[in-house]
């Protein structure tokens, strides 16, 4: 029994309790900007944590790296610069908002462990380019790890649960953790590659049921160059379609994603598939809402769904909001911050908008 307990330790992850340096995600900022703002707000205002949002960091260049236009040595030096900025700011715990970046940070740190001469070369590169010096973080987490760590505190403050108010039953939630979270270096992920718990833990803590469907761990299909180049996008859409076909019999109420890229693709490819094949997933041809964990935490805590940005997903979330019993204002949906009515977006032909 003791031995079995020790085996389980390999799947545990230490997550720092406070004092974080935050690095943003290109895709999360561009497609789900409110998610990053909400994450900072919930950590500071709801949980009373110290987190530093440094304007001086840049892209990690990760999308370029996995699309092979940025060399490994270059991305290592860019990441080293982020570590230097963290050191200069007096922090030792880093939170990374992107799964692609997170995978890259883990790859880089493991490379430096296996090849110390590479670490020295990167120190030289960074000093030569910027006169900066860096330390490797004491604790490295993806931002979902932090929400996972504080999932029970969020549950205690919850205004809404992942319970269908019409039936009293838990909502059926698909979770998608994103390949680069723990397929490369399982020890950095909560539950590793085999028992990833980072999203499932949130879903359970907030009252939902996790759907275990055949293609649960299949890639969303981003594929970097397979999406970035228009000629290749069939690869990307085909992979998302494989997942939606596989989850369809389980009647998911929502898809919860870890990676901002996966969130975007699983949302947008539902539109593309509906245009290409006339096939719309979800009840009443409305699609299956795809949310970031920040957005879901925000709904649970009772934040206005339109301040969280749910109206700017291609698949609209009203069916989910109604199931959760959330009291939302339809009139507020497409208004500016100061309350001025904005134009209405065009309705897709094959999705009930």
């Amino acid at each position: 029994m003791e031995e079995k307990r020790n085996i389980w330790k390999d799947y545990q992850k230490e997550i720092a309790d406070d004092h974080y340096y935050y690095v943003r995600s290109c895709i999360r900022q561009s497609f789900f900007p409110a998610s990053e703002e909400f994450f900072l707000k919930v950590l500071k205002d709801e949980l009373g944590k110290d987190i530093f949002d440094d304007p001086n960091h840049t892209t990690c260049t990760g999308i370029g790296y996995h699309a092979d236009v940025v060399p490994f040595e270059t991305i290592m030096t860019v990441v080293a610069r982020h570590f230097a900025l963290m050191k200069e700011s007096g922090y030792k715990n880093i939170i990374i908002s992107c799964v692609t970046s997170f995978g890259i940070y883990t790859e880089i740190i493991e490379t430096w462990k296996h090849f110390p001469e590479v670490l020295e070369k990167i120190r030289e590169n960074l000093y030569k380019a910027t006169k900066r010096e860096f330390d490797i973080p004491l604790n490295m987490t993806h931002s979902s790890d932090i929400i996972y760590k504080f999932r029970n505190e969020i549950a205690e403050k919850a205004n809404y649960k992942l319970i269908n108010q019409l039936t009293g039953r838990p909502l059926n939630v698909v979770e998608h953790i994103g390949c680069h979270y723990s397929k490369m270096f399982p020890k950095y992920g909560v539950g590793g590659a085999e028992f990833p718990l980072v999203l499932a833990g949130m879903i359970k803590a907030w009252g939902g049921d996790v759907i275990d469907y055949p293609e649960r761990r299949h890639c969303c299909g981003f594929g970097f160059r397979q999406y970035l180049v228009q000629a290749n996008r069939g690869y990307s859409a085909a992979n998302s379609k494989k997942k939606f076909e596989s989850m369809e019999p389980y009647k998911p109420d929502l898809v919860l994603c870890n990676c901002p890229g996966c969130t975007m693709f699983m949302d947008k490819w539902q539109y593309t598939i509906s245009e290409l094949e006339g096939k719309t997933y979800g009840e009443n041809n409305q699609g299956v809402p795809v949310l970031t964990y920040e957005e879901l935490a925000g709904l649970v805590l009772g934040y206005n769904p339109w301040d969280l940005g749910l109206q700017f997903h291609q698949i609209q979330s009203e069916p989910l909001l109604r199931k959760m019993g959330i009291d939302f204002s339809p009139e507020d949906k497409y208004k500016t911050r100061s309350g001025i009515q904005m134009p209405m977006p065009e309705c897709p032909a094959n999705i009930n908008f």
Partner: protein
Amino acid sequence: MGKLYDLLLQDVRFKEGLNACMNCGVCTAICPAAEFYKYDPREIIDTVQTKDEAKIEALMRSETIWYCGQCMSCKTRCPRGNTPAMVVMALRSVSQKLGYFTDSEKGRQQFAIKRTVGENILKYGYCVPTYAVTPEMHPEQGPIWSYINENIEEVMERLGANLRKPGPGSMREIHQSNLDELDRIFEVSGGHNLYNDIERFSEKKADEMGMEFKKEGTDNEYFRHVYTFNSGNHSRE
């Protein structure tokens, strides 16, 4: 050993990604690209570990190495701890360094990625900022993406972003001093060299193909061709 194998060995990802393959094929079984394309990561590893220079050169000039989607599922499952996707990255690096990439339809697409994501990085400090992912080049993003782009100021303000303004926040303007540091990092670490290689070999290929090529931007025949052309010879169907 041969020149190409030596070049591969200089890449730590190659050293880390290939120990000794026993040809079990688990990587191919788990691979999303193998399901979609005429692609078999097991064969790539098998070819590379022969150390046969002619075969490795043929691989570097082929469509094959560009099919991998970098999901890294192969790393989790290989019983020998190999990572075919990392070996593919090393093959792609050498292919670009030597100009072999322009021999294949999929390899030539590197030019489109350099002119979009590659240039976004140094121009904006982001890989894919909202305003650079245009609906014209991304119709699959749907009507909501067109709406966001048409109303970007109002949308970003509503969502608490700091669009193209100084200071912290989502979609903030990256200060020029930070972009300058990024540029110097590219200079000392080989980033600019790779961009220059992609440009140089692509210009040569455009000339060979009799296509218009411009030194900047996406408004030229060669860019449009590599970004959109699909011969239809790649997938399994």
